[in-house]
């Protein structure tokens, strides 16, 4: 299997379910192994709540550390942030804000998408 580019989208609030951390585990899994697939990680809708400053990341620290080493940044859709009254100042430092049109660009670029 050749290398693929995979887009991961996160749409669930971070607590009360395991979507957010299992999703990050899957991201790391996809980047590992012989094919070393490349990834984008985008937070949409309520998923952006994971990116707030001060969120307890204990469950996902290792996954995030691995992604940081790979140079993968966590991306948040600007329109989803605005709908929740959030701006860059409310978010963790490792987050990049992108426009909805850029999310669409990532969708176009991806060989496949996986949602959590």
């Amino acid at each position, binding site marked *: 299997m050749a290398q693929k580019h995979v887009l991961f*989208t996160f*749409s*669930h609030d971070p607590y009360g379910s395991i979507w957010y951390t299992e999703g990050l585990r899957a991201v790391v899994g996809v980047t590992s192994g012989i094919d070393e697939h490349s990834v984008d990680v985008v937070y*949409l*809708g309520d*998923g952006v709540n994971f990116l707030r400053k001060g969120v307890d990341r204990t469950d996902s620290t290792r996954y995030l550390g691995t992604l940081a080493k790979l140079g993968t940044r966590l991306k948040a859709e600007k*329109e*989803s942030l605005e709908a929740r009254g959030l701006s860059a100042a409310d978010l963790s430092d490792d987050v990049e804000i992108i426009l*909805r*049109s850029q*999310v*669409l660009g990532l*969708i*176009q670029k991806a060989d*496949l*998408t*996986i*949602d959590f």
Partner: protein
Amino acid sequence: MANLYLLDKAIGQNALPIAAEDKGAKVVLIQDGVYLNTEFLRKAGAEVYAVNQDAQKRGLTGGLPSYVKLIDYGQLVDLIVANKVINFC
């Protein structure tokens, strides 16, 4: 090959505005996704489908707008094979 958005309700809600910006997008409403309001997708020119069995179970067969094409799971498979799937369900 178009982008084929598969939308359930909870996650699919987030994909609606993205699909609306995606020229030539096809959107399939699956399971609780049949409850989604897709009017602005129609205005954006997207093709909108709903899985008939999922609409029937929820009593929505007559309640969906006329621009929503009802398909069965066999037709859904055909769409999946023929297009690039963007999964939001």
